[in-house]
């Protein structure tokens, strides 16, 4: 049963539709990411759930209660803002205690819960620091503790790690995942970083221009992208123009000189997407010439000029001999490693 449910939610600012037809059901304890480029409506959607914005259309339900009828202050959601929005005139402990104070939690219990929350995010001993005297990472942890201490029904995170440097971001990702696993809070993370979405979430909602492109597990969205946008956005990919030939038996999918039995349900011009790491060099297949070869430590990156346009190939550095620049090669991949979509306009 769905814990949090968004039902055809839409938001318009004037004539601009920023979020459109957004339907999603989130299970209890699930970690969901909204992934999409900047300006695609992720923050807007999150703010609608939080109640800071009213949806133009659609309904939101939390445990089958209509969330839109509940004032934002009464929704009991924990929110970490991109800017953290800590209260600069309060110490870390006072920041964390604020939500408990608003809930009239008795002083003794409050102090104990604040201490535990700060300890959980690794900030024991920082109780009396003011936010402006803390590093970005520490402020981020205070914001997380402040959101979690009220035991929120849903935790909403708006690009919480985007202000941190790469190394700290990676550390915080691991920590965030661990904390979420431990306390089991249903979490929605907004991010434009595909690696972050993939390494943290149970399911990813890929968004583009206010619309959902695909909802799926990280593996599904990466390996079975539902649209060209998804395959482009989630890592590097090769898109080849191909055709499905139904005049021969058995029907064939043809991409240049590469051939495979055609998948069911499609015919005519198609686009075939293959991840660079799923392409190998073989005896038969797409003929190509290696233009550049770049060594990157644990792998080789080849930029090729194939009969179907430019192609990128990534090979593990497993000690085997690799083709050199200028070599003529055949590119090949297993049919289950590609995704095939109808190609419009051909």
């Amino acid at each position, binding site marked *: 049963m769905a814990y949090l449910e968004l039902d055809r939610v839409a938001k318009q600012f004037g004539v601009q539709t920023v979020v459109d037809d957004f339907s999603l059901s989130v299970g209890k304890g699930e970690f969901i990411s909204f992934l999409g480029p900047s300006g695609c409506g992720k923050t807007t959607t999150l*703010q609608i759930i*939080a109640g*800071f914005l009213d949806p133009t259309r659609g309904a939101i339900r939390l445990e089958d209660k209509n969330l839109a009828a509940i004032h*934002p*202050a*009464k*929704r*009991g*959601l*924990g*929110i970490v*803002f*991109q*800017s*953290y*929005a*800590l*209260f*600069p*005139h309060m110490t870390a402990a006072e920041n964390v205690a*604020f*939500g408990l104070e*608003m*809930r009239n939690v008795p002083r003794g219990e409050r102090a104990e819960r604040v201490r535990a929350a700060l300890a959980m995010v690794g900030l024991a001993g920082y109780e009396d620091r*003011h936010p*402006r*005297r803390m590093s970005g990472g520490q402020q981020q942890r205070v914001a997380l503790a*402040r*959101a979690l201490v*009220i035991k929120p029904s849903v935790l909403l995170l708006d690009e919480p790690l985007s202000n941190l440097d790469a190394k700290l971001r990676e550390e915080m990702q691991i920590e965030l995942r661990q904390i979420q696993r431990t306390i089991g809070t249903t979490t929605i993370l907004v991010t434009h970083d595909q690696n972050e979405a993939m390494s943290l979430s149970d399911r990813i909602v890929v968004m583009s221009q206010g619309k959902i492109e695909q909802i799926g597990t990280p593996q599904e969205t990466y390996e079975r992208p539902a649209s060209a946008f998804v395959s482009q956005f989630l890592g590097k990919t090769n898109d080849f123009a191909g055709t499905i030939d139904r005049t021969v038996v058995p029907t064939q999918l043809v991409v240049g000189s590469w051939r495979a039995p055609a998948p069911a349900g499609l015919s005519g011009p198609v686009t075939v997407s293959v991840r660079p790491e799923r392409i190998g060099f073989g005896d038969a297949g797409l003929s190509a010439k290696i233009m550049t070869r770049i060594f990157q430590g644990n792998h080789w990156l080849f930029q090729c000029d194939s009969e179907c346009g430019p192609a990128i190939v990534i090979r593990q550095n497993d000690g085997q001999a690799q083709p050199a620049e200028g070599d003529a090669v055949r590119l090949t991949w297993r049919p289950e490693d590609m995704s095939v979509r109808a190609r419009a306009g051909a």
Partner: protein
Amino acid sequence: MSTAADERNARAPWALTAPALMLFVGVLLIPLAMTVMLSFHDWGQYKGIEPVFILKNWHEIVTDPYYAEMFWRTFRIAILTTLLTALLGAPEAYILNRMDGRWKSIFLLVILGPLLISVVARTLGWALLFGGNNGLVNKLLMSAGVISSPIPFMFTETGMVVALAHVMMPFMVLSVWAALQRLDPQIENAAMSLGAGPLTIIRRIIMPQIMPGVLSGAIIVFSLSASAFATPAIIGGRRLKVAATLAYDEFLNTLNWPLGAAVATLLLAALVLIVVGSNALIERRYAEVFR
């Protein structure tokens, strides 16, 4: 080891600031020093100013209760004006800040526009509205039978405070406005998501953060009000004197320059002490917010 280039670098700041420094010394420090010196000179109805060093003027100011009362009035008016601008200006800036883009700019213009109009014109406006039997408002209210005699406004401290507060309001609004711009745009949402109602948000989250702005606005308004001349001159005239109008009178009517200089010096010294003192207090108290 110091090279010629180093020396040139060390001299450069002095050379660059010299013109401004000379202007500062020439038009501010020298006249100021002369005013202080003047306050120790002697003066007589027939002999005029005598360049001697005596404490006569200072003795008169300290012993004659007239001056104590006048200074007390000056600061009372300045304090009340400051309070009034803070009570009206801070909410005004907050409401302004929450308005939508276009309305915000229109109302900001309405609030700041008066800065472009002379203080004299603005104060005369009050006189036209409330000045005795001929004041527009007084006339209307009296003919409507709401009041039987004019509202006491001219030559009263209340009138002076109201007119000064009107003149000083933009400084307070601007100062609070600047503090509001430093607020995280999501700070109210953050407090709300934690369960705070609108009043709690204002009291616990907004107020403490804009307090430095209110206080620095208060310092500006206080010092400008305590040394204001045009508004007290028009509203208070020669019946209700404050330090600035008294000094002016001593200089230009009585021609007792040394006494006027002593009043001006005392006003300046008191203001400097108050402003520097309260500034230090504020900075210490709000170190975390200012950082």
